[in-house]
């Protein structure tokens, strides 16, 4: 039915293919290709098999990127994930060394992560006055603190029965299992965020918590779920990380949170909430991995790599803003 004034409202979008391709994700794909060409030109040892071999360590961070993207989309932040990884790994190692069946060790590792996430979730949802940043800063210190106590004066535990974990670090041909898992999970996470009601609600929460609440979105319940999920993924990351270093120590995974956040942001997800797509985050993760592996081949001072990554991060976020402003100017003059 048309309105009383006979006005009709369009409900389809005719975006040309070109316009559809003109998005941040396409930029990132191009950047990914450029980075890879550049790295291959830097060193003859930047080869696919080497990249695949070095990749697993970095992929453990991508496990965290996925739920972190959800958290950021909701306008929240979780800086305790690195500590959760450490604590989960600690628990898994201790139980593994006690001789528990490997399946059970995996399960408990995951559950430890989920429990930590749940604690974060409970605090941020029960005390909504508190910014998640400061809550997770507290738990960041706390979770790693507990791991420190559990790790004892040695500060590290090594696996006595590494067979199970060795399996996790296995490969099909040259391709590590973890890559398969990361890709599968990435696809699932992307679909959930972009195609399901759950995803839409996350964007609603991030765009306007209050309006989402009034519209019947169970804001606090969803936040609780996502924080717990983040913990669970940290547990998963912990298991693979354990497999990659046959054990755990007090500094395990410190700084993972910042890496996960910068991947997400590089991929176009705004820390202010409600904006960005996970596709971008995943591509950005692979750009960063390529760059780290590539620059590692020429033994560049890692501090210089950090400077490059820092600058890249800032530019990546600033570029679309500048493009937007430019577009606005153009649009304005075209209406005239």
């Amino acid at each position, binding site marked *: 039915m048309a309105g009383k004034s006979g006005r009709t409202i369009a409900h389809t979008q005719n975006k040309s293919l070109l316009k559809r391709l003109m998005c941040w994700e396409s930029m990132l794909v191009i950047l990914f290709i450029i980075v*890879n*060409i550049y790295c*291959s*030109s830097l*060193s*003859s*040892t*930047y*080869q*696919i*098999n*080497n990249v695949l*071999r*070095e990749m697993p*360590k*970095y992929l453990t961070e991508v496990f965290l990127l996925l739920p972190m993207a959800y958290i950021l989309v909701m306008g929240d932040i979780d800086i305790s994930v690195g500590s959760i990884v450490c604590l989960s790994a600690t628990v898994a190692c201790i139980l593994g060394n006690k001789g528990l069946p490997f399946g059970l060790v995996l399960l408990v590792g995951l559950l430890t992560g989920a429990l930590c996430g749940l604690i974060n979730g409970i605090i941020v949802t029960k005390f909504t006055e508190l910014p998640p940043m400061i809550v997770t800063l507290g738990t960041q210190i706390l979770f790693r603190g507990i791991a*420190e106590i559990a*790790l004892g*004066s*040695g*500060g*590290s*535990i*090594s696996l006595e029965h590494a067979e199970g974990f060795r399996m996790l*670090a296995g490969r099909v041909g040259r391709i590590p299992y973890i890559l398969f898992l990361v890709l599968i999970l990435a696809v699932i996470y992307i679909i959930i965020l972009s195609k399901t009601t759950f995803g839409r609600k996350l964007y609603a929460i991030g765009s306007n918590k209050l309006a989402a609440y009034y519209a019947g979105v169970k804001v606090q319940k969803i936040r609780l779920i996502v924080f717990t999920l983040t913990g669970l993924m940290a547990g998963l990351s912990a298991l693979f990380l354990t*497999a*990659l*270093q*046959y*054990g*755990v*120590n*007090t*500094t*395990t*995974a*410190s*700084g993972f949170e910042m890496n996960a956040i910068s991947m997400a942001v590089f991929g176009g997800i705004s820390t202010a909430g409600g904006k960005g797509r996970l596709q971008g985050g995943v591509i950005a993760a692979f750009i960063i991995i390529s760059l*780290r*592996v590539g620059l*590692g*081949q020429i*033994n560049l*001072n*890692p*501090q210089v*790599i*950090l400077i490059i990554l820092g600058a890249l991060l800032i530019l990546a976020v600033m570029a679309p803003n500048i493009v937007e402003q430019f577009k606005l100017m153009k649009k304005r003059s075209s209406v005239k």
Partner: protein
Amino acid sequence: GSSNDGGDDAKSEDGGSDSGKKVYAMVAKQAGNPFMEKMAEGFTEVVEAAGGEAIIKYPEEGKADHQITAIQSLISQGVDSISVAANDENALQPALEDAMAEGIKVNCLDSKVNADSRQLFVNQAGVDEIGQALMDAVLDISGGEGQWAILSATSQATNQNAWIDSMKEIMEGDEYSKLELVEVAYGDDEPQKSTDQTQALLSKYPDLKVICAPTTVGIMAAGKVLQDEGSATKLTGLGLPSEMAAYIGDGDDSSCPYMFLWNPIDLGRLGAYSAIALVNGDIEGAEGETFDAGDMENSPYTITDAGDGGTEVILGQPFKFDPSNIDEWKEVY
């Protein structure tokens, strides 16, 4: 060459360098640390003199995580040897096993990895020698009796814990019976925390005679606190002469009568010599083997059992720095 297909295998096998030089890599504990820098200097000097190429790889941060990626990158580059100053005894095992499986020789220096992950440990000084030297210093400085305390790095630092354990064992002896170890404090190798801990020790134990700080950051912070306050408590431990020169002296206005360390340059050199010997096939890292270390003091060195299932070679005794030699050494490292 921008080949992405994994071809050109021959090249990657004999090293990343084009000239066919042997490539020896050292993985430092962390960047921005003068001790590591001096070690790297010695390492590079020897490798280059032998006609090889040295790669010094710094991890992003002083953590085992980052050393793993550094080692993997070196494996990709097909280096001939990796010498690592480990941040964690066990965490590097999978990476180093990979390296050894690729035919890369692995030794460690300064702080070790477990026996399965290495072929040889280049030890700066035997744990017991260090423990003994420090214990004797405490005994001497305290005048034979009274309270003393330890200011260590982190409570998990492997080297420090080994030395502290050794000191505690030595303290069982009769001559140390009048000494009372009141506390082991941890400054986490952070200046501020180490300062807090030192001050806490002083206020908790007004009669404290000696603080022993077997860590370069801790000893610096403690040296400063004690000297600024003109405290009667004196200091010894392990420190870099260049950093500690201001605090070493006999008088009341100096906080540290003397302290110990080994020569990091020599440690790097011995690391390089042993790596070269491993790569050349002169040694395999087995007990009883010997190798030549150029003009180094104790050359040729003999490989001994490290007591952890692996082997080691010991650089020498810890070296004592006191007012008589500090000015000379502070220029060196």
